[in-house]
């Protein structure tokens, strides 16, 4: 009986060591929620911006000037600030979790996750920037969702496996968006906002709830 208990503990130990050495498991659900909230805030600003440009009733005119050409520029800045805010807040919660669990944040698994995420996202980013330079704006929102989704599916091998489903969700939204052009911002808010929050809540519930 004792040896059986011993064997079970050995197997659990093996599993734990395999996971800890190959996957970045500190990713916090709260990071997903924080990133989602940033994305929703960014989408709200962008919709205000577009609304004010189209209709001419600018509630936020003090914050943003609006004469035609500057719209794209402003939207670009909103997107950049949103991305940075999302990244920083996501980083903070994951950092806190890794500290709590006593797992170093910067290890072999972090580097691997980082590169597998950065490559598809950067390539996608360059592709979309070039498309915008050529005056193609319609496919930017679905493009963001599709490239981000692919990056997540790719990265899921190096972190919590559930990230894969978040990736599938983003890809699906991106593909639907291809035939619902004009609703880019809504799809974008769905994917980067709502999906992140749903994913974050589920992950927090599963792994971090006490």
């Amino acid at each position: 009986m004792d040896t059986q208990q011993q064997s079970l503990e050995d197997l659990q130990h093996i599993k734990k060591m395999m996971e800890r050495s190959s996957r970045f498991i500190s990713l916090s659900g709260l990071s997903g929620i924080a990133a989602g909230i940033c994305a929703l805030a960014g989408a709200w600003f962008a919709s205000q911006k577009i609304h004010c440009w189209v209709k001419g009733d600018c509630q936020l005119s003090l914050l943003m000037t609006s004469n035609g050409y500057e719209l794209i520029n402003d939207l670009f800045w909103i997107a950049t600030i949103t991305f940075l805010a999302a990244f920083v807040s996501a980083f903070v919660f994951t950092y806190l979790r890794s500290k709590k669990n006593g797992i170093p944040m910067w290890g072999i698994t972090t580097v691997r996750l980082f590169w597998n995420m950065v490559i598809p996202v950067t390539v996608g980013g360059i592709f979309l920037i070039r498309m915008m330079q050529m005056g193609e704006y319609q496919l930017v929102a679905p493009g963001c969702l599709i490239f981000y989704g692919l990056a997540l599916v790719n990265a899921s091998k190096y972190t919590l496996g559930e990230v894969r489903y978040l990736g599938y969700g983003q890809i699906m939204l991106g593909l639907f968006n291809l035939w619902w052009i004009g609703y880019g911002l809504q799809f974008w808010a769905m994917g980067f906002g709502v999906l992140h929050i749903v994913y974050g809540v589920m992950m927090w519930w599963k792994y971090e709830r006490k």
Partner: protein
Amino acid sequence: MKNPIENLNKIFDSRIRLGIMSALMVNDGVSFNELKELLDITDGNLASHLKTLDESGFIKFTKGFIGRKTNTTYAITKTGEKEFKLHLEALTKMIGSVK
């Protein structure tokens, strides 16, 4: 029927050696410092366990440098992989026999 205990490898009795082998099974190469971090043990302790595994022919290492510091990377050998799998099977059988 053969007793599964016969397949349990004495070398894997130690949790630390089991941990090293687990990490090497799923990674192409793991450095000394990464192993140290993973297992949370001292240099001397880790080195002695690595020596045991190396002497059994279960792991191999390549010495490299990061700046002036030595950086040794460890990997599993064919023998090590085979033995570890046998050990895993034996462990699984041991648990199976509870039912």
